[in-house]
């Protein structure tokens, strides 16, 4: 899957779970500050991403994942 398509799929998940407009889901967006997502929103986003990409994300992997870019890299790393 190419990068643009993967990010589009990631973005769809974020828009659905966090209820934000698609143009806000950019690499540098901070979940807490820019997307008003709290820790439970992140858990829900992870669940959505797990379903959508058929991957598994452990709780420990979410340490220091504060931005869309970091979360996207985590997902992408699991698709390789």
């Amino acid at each position, binding site marked *: 899957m190419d990068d643009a398509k993967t990010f589009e799929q990631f973005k769809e998940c974020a828009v659905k779970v966090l209820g934000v407009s698609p143009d806000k889901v950019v690499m540098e967006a901070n979940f807490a500050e820019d997307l008003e997502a709290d*820790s*439970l929103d992140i858990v829900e986003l*992870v669940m959505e991403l797990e379903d959508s990409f058929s991957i598994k994300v452990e*709780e420990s992997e979410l340490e220091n994942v504060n931005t869309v870019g970091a979360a996207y890299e985590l997902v992408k790393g699991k698709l390789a």
Partner: protein
Amino acid sequence: MNMYGSKVVGWGAALPDEVVTNKDFEARLETNDAWITERTGIKERRMGGTTSSLAVEAAQKALANAGLQPSDIGLLVLSTTTPEQTVPATSGTIQAQLGLTCGAFDINAACAGFVYGLVVGHSMIATGTERVLVIGSDTLSKITDQQDRSTAVLFADGAGAVILERTAPEDNAVLGWDLGVDGSLVPILYCDHGGYLKMEGREVFKRAVLAMVSSAKTAMERAGVTADDIALVVPHQANIRIIEAANNRLGLSMEKTAIVLDTTGNTSSGSVPLALSAAVEKGMVNPGEYILFSGFGAGMTWASAVVRWGK
């Protein structure tokens, strides 16, 4: 087909008098009302009483509601994760205080325990017992570190009870259920003897949503109903966000969901019958309509049941 079916003929609930608000926690812990409300939906909770005193009060209300005497009860099943002693079971104390003459035992399936109890009660009726009193009662505040802001705001005290009565098989109202546990998940939510509840909140959140969705689906399938047929959802009252996330995935609306956690917090075994009693009082369900009960808890346990409402 079983020899007998069962139906719910009485219900009641009990809460201690002392109200502890989010503001009260603000005064002594580094937390605030907005944080607690946004992440849990809890505004206040009740603390006090004992597992047996709350259970007795709820059971007496259920007996009065059903128009029954203690001698009419053939079995007492108490769901609790906060028994008063290691030995004997707390159900014995309750049996004596209610003036029952029947057998009694405790079950512990944590916050899924009341639904476990309901299914056990139904099963005992299916094999011949005439009426079973199922009580869920917990005093979680006693096993919660009141200085730990991650758990102190969540766990509280309360109880509820229902009475199941024998019916002809064709009138059976307990239609389908699912009970489960994944014992590999003990480390994410537990309490050692003499200790306090320890919880990995985010992991529990995730597992709870997944367990509720899968268990509710199984119970509905076994009952031969779909989400559209459910008039009232009575979920375990741990966290509004868990309930919303599970409902979304199940296609169930919050309008038809019983919620009391805003004023009760998480009362473990007490939560489902507390929510049921409140929903019935509000007129959220009519005779003949279907109720979906769903619980999840430490273990991790889960339990769901579909019940047709009506005496």
